[in-house]
């Protein structure tokens, strides 16, 4: 069974807030759900499938489904870190194709900037690897820094090349009134910012923001009944990369999720007009571009030079909202906003200065876990209504 054209994204919403000290996490889930349903021209009563990940407070999806007042015949709380929401789109399309639901609501919310962690979160217990990795001062930044170091060693990638990715994101963020970092930066700004974990600088990292987002995925029949332009799901790929001790830090799960998505959609990387690429760090983008086949492995550093990623006229316009690097990385999970901006591009509703002309086909890619180690990669190919 293929999910090609089995479902459409009918509504999207990105919370405009980046600093939300007076909001609760369940409250943000409600606001973004209401926003995405309103965008689709629908209501909570239309929803019959609910999807959420580990950011949702409570017991799996049950607590939030009850809190939102949903009546569901399908539920999915797949957790693959920041890529979860792209996996949810794939799973929603599968469920819709199987007749298990027809209107799927996917929500994300969190407050890493102002705290407010919810009680009663994960009951999954310590991970089996934590006894072996929790002793050495590992954190998110130095984990990704080791991937960057190895990529530099194998392929000659430079800090200046990584910085070009931040520069491109910042040129887009200047047009986004909600962006957390709206100022354009230069390569020099990035490489002269403080080293957090060598070779990654402060400006190689994404922002930390409160907020959230939501998606509404519907059957083709319901999509046809809506006034709104909807976005068909053309293909999807999912890969979990594990190592068994032979960890390698220069390849991501996109090596498998990308070809699966392209194959299902019946297209090649050359057909893509716009990409939303998960951008927790600059190195995340570089490795993903290579692994998705937009350039040869190891050539990412050269590929991103000379404005290749800058909209509207670069070779591969990316993250036109400013991405996680400059705009928003709500709940420390960037997958939701990747889908939202791809949908904006396909509807022609991106900020005008960065709208890709005739954007007919787009790719959104999510990364979860720690880059190139144990990680979940998810790729979506999205189209335009014919």
């Amino acid at each position, binding site marked *: 069974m293929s999910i090609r054209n089995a479902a459409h994204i009918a509504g999207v919403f990105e919370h405009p807030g980046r600093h939300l000290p007076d909001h609760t996490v369940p409250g943000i889930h409600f606001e973004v759900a209401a926003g995405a349903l309103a965008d689709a021209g629908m209501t909570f009563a239309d929803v019959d499938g609910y999807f959420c990940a580990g950011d949702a407070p409570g017991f799996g999806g049950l607590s939030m489904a009850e809190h939102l007042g949903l009546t569901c015949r399908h539920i999915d709380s797949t957790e693959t870190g920041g890529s979860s929401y792209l996996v949810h789109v794939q799973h929603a399309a599968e469920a819709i194709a199987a007749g298990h639901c027809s209107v799927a609501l996917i929500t994300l919310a969190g407050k890493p900037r102002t705290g407010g962690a919810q009680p009663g979160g994960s009951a999954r217990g*310590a991970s*089996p*690897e*934590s*006894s*072996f*990795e929790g*002793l*050495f*001062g*590992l*954190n998110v*930044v*130095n984990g990704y*820094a*080791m*991937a960057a*170091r*190895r990529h530099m*060693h194998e392929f000659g990638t430079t800090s200046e090349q990584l910085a070009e990715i931040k520069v491109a994101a910042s040129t887009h963020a200047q047009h986004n009134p909600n962006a957390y970092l709206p100022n354009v930066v230069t390569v020099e700004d990035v490489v002269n910012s*403080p*080293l*957090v*974990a*060598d*070779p*990654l600088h402060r400006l190689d990292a994404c922002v930390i923001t409160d907020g959230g987002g939501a998606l509404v995925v519907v059957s083709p029949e319901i999509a046809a009944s809506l006034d709104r332009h909807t976005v068909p799901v053309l293909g999807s790929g999912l890969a979990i990369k*594990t*190592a*068994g*001790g*032979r*960890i390698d*830090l220069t390849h991501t799960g996109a090596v498998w999720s990308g070809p699966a998505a392209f194959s299902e959609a019946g297209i090649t990387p050359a057909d893509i007009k716009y990409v939303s690429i998960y951008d927790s760090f600059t190195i995340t983008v570089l490795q993903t571009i290579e692994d998705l086949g937009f350039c040869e492995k190891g050539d990412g550093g050269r590929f991103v030079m000379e404005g290749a990623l800058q909209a509207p006229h670069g070779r591969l316009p990316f993250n036109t909202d400013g991405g996680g690097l400059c705009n928003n990385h709500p709940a420390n999970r960037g997958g939701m906003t990747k889908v939202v901006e791809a949908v904006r591009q396909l509807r022609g509703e991106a900020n005008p200065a960065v709208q890709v002309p005739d954007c007919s086909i787009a790719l959104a890619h999510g990364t979860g876990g720690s880059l190139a180690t144990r990680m979940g990669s998810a790729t979506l190919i999205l189209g335009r209504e014919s």
Partner: protein
Amino acid sequence: MPRPTDLPTPTPRSSSDDQVFWDGLAEDRLLLPRCTSCGSVFWHPRPFCPECSCTRIDWFAATGNGTIYSYSVTHKAPGNWGAHAPYVIAYVELDEGPRVMSNIVDADLDMLEVGLEVQAVFHAGADGGAVLRFTPSPG
């Protein structure tokens, strides 16, 4: 005897799945698991082989020698590691094959590079037990 260290070194959390490994470290010995069926030397320790699912596992004494696969000199860190910055986190490729996460200690930071030869050192846990770390090999 594992040596004392200033780095944060809690007593590792062991279980019946990996007690052999931790008991080895407490005696300055790096014991690795090897599958008796497919021969894989895997990481992290567990009572079955992640390559072929075999549950007959041998433990053997590794050399403690390896090379740096990748590393990061960490300048800013949350929690109790922040006060120890700059410190070095690394993946070390053991001569026996696995790439294991650890720290590089007692090293000249300017001499660090991918491929540098390192050897095991054993750091005493706060309340017993030991943690595996690495230091540049002499010469």
